[in-house]
């Protein structure tokens, strides 16, 4: 007893005791919730089981990145949905980053019109709910574009219609290996040349146009390989057959609307983050860089952006996470993502709402945690290292 009082009087051990107590409370609350669910389920005559994952799903999905038909299992349908979520998230993140960084820099420009346009873009998009924007983009695509039979024809190879966008699909044939080989060589060359020119600059101060030389190498070498091996790539051109276009690469209106809406919406937030990051760099840094004779573009690239990057990355991470999670709004326009497959049709066909929802949440959680982990790793790489 005396010992316990002693522990309680000691500030350090008291804190530990309190923390253990809080932890126990939380644990008890969670187990009470789980027990409650279990007892309610048994009262309804339901059990908790994940066996449904291995039975045939029975429904079709209009966009699949891996082979899928209605005889495949619910598990495979869920993976198809997960990949669709991944696809729209990656496309959206690329669009949002490119657009967001550009708009952020444009807003800081001295051109009054450009900066005002960027300002209105940001204020409009970030203040309108994302769901409305998704519906708006989808409405624009399906109502303003023509029917496939009168699709907008771009050079007889690409078509725009309210059933989506169709572009030619490259078909790889024998001999493509040479193109791959030349690409690898080009990349290795670019890497070595970058190292070499950096060293040369450090030793002698001579600067090569590294970017241009490397870019040309990476473009020209594979093209050379392509012609040497006898042009081993043919194009599958979409053709109108019956009701719809057949062949080529198809981007459905739902995927397009979702990508545009998520990209444009998140870009508004990213542009503000970029702007804040750049403005946070002390004016003296730019003046000092200018005083040693650096050009404005070099000041931006060598002095401002590397420092701004440290400020930008943590909030940028949460924008990427937001975009990925917002992609679950796909359900509003019928894009078959994870929520629409596992959390939608599978749920409904099997009636396993608890199991499917737990799975969907666990998957979103792990996607978000992986994005965070990657961005934290990147942040650690670029952050200020104390010496």
């Amino acid at each position, binding site marked *: 007893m005396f010992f316990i009082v002693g522990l309680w009087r000691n500030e350090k051990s008291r804190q530990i005791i309190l923390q253990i107590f809080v932890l*126990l409370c939380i644990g*008890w609350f969670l187990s*009470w919730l789980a*027990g*409650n669910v279990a*007892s309610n389920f048994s*009262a*309804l*005559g*339901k059990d908790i089981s994940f066996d449904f994952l291995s039975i045939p799903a*029975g*429904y*079709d*999905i*209009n966009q699949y990145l891996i082979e899928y*038909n*209605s*005889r495949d299992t619910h598990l495979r349908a869920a993976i198809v949905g997960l990949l669709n979520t991944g696809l729209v998230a990656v496309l959206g993140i690329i669009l949002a980053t490119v657009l967001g960084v550009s708009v952020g820099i444009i807003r800081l420009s001295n051109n009054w019109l450009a900066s005002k346009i960027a300002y209105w873009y940001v204020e409009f998009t970030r203040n309108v709910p994302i769901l409305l924007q998704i519906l708006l983009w989808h409405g624009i695509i*399906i*109502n303003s574009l023509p*029917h496939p039979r009168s699709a907008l024809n771009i050079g007889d190879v690409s078509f725009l219609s*309210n*059933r989506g966008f169709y572009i030619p699909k490259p078909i790889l044939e024998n001999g493509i290996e040479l193109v791959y080989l030349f690409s690898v060589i080009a990349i290795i060359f670019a890497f070595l040349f970058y190292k070499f020119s950096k060293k040369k600059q450090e030793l002698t101060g001579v600067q090569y146009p590294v970017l241009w030389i490397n870019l040309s190498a990476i473009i020209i070498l594979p093209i050379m390989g392509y012609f040497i091996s006898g042009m081993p790539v043919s194009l599958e051109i979409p053709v109108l*057959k*019956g*009701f*719809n276009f*057949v062949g080529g690469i198809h981007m459905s*209106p739902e995927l397009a609307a979702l990508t545009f809406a998520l990209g444009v919406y998140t870009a508004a937030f990213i542009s503000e983050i970029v702007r804040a990051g750049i403005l946070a760099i002390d004016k003296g840094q730019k003046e000092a860089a200018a005083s040693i004779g650096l050009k404005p573009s070099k000041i931006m690239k060598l002095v401002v952006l590397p420092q701004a990057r440290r400020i930008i990355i943590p909030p940028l991470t949460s924008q990427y996470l937001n975009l990925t999670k917002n992609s679950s709004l796909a*359900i*509003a326009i*019928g894009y*078959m993502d994870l929520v*629409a497959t596992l959390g*939608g*049709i599978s*749920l*409904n*066909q*099997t*009636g396993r*709402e608890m199991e499917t929802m737990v799975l969907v949440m666990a998957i979103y959680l792990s996607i978000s945690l992986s994005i965070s982990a990657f961005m934290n790793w990147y942040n650690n790489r670029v952050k200020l290292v104390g010496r």
Partner: protein
Amino acid sequence: MKTKMILAVATAGVMFAGSALASTLDDVRARGKLNCIINTGLAGFAAPDDKGNWKGFDVDFCRAVAAATLGDASKVSYTTATGKTRFTKLAAGEGEILSRNTTWTFSRDVDLSQTFVGVSYYDGQGFMVPKKLGVKSAKELGGASVCIQTGTTTELNLAEFFAANNMKYNPVPIETNSEAQELYKAGRCDVYTTDASGLYATISSFDNPSDHMVLPEIISKEPLGPVVRHGDDQWADIVAWTLRAMLAGEELGVTSKNVKSLASKDNKNKEINRLLGKDTLQGVTKLGLSPDWAVNIISQVGNYEEVFEANLGQSTPLKIARGANQLYRDGGLYYVPPIK
């Protein structure tokens, strides 16, 4: 020690909460209102009229159950559900009846712990296309974009039909019937598929109904009917016999016009007497209903024929023929167990 106390109290609370559950009928009577889960909007089955009151075939069935249990058909409060949310809403107790074009299947009946109490509409899945497409049969639909309501049996039928006929298609999944109409009108899909009744309802709401047609193929059996939660047999019986009373009303010639006069006199056909509470019908009190339960249903809502004709029949924009939804003696599928 204290934690144990809390645990014990909490556990006891949960246990008592479990045993204190009243029957569904008692809940409805105590509340004075029946909670009914219906469609978010399907002309003829459940759709708000210009005054904002819900009207339709499924809605009338809710009113019939309210008439039987509460004596007043207007004592219903409606909750809407999409194809996806309906079973969850029923299981969560948001309504006592799910009256929403729901297909009776083995898995739904058994695996989802629900009770299908009967069939109120025999339906089948069909296809609807714009006439200008020039399609005459569902077998010509290979390669088409098909709008389809998610969370329904139609998805499975569709996949099986196209696979069986070796045709490819592009499914466009949609949440509600009204969204599907918009996409169909905008030309996002060539075909819209759902239960044939839903197709007629959809066409009737178009500006130019004659520009669209329902293809002759019916690719599935869709017995639609009301659903209740599993486990309360008394309630399931009430809902089942409400439907049968409406059908028996048609069979015996009892209509909303003549029900009051038939109920007040001794009829030659004793089954009418038993249905309308003139002669004792053994077990009505066990069901918890008053002897005039069927009188309330038929006088306030109507018999099956009246409800069908008022909501779906030839006098409505839907103009659905009775077809399989006739009594057995007229060539349909309804064969009502005797009221005795």
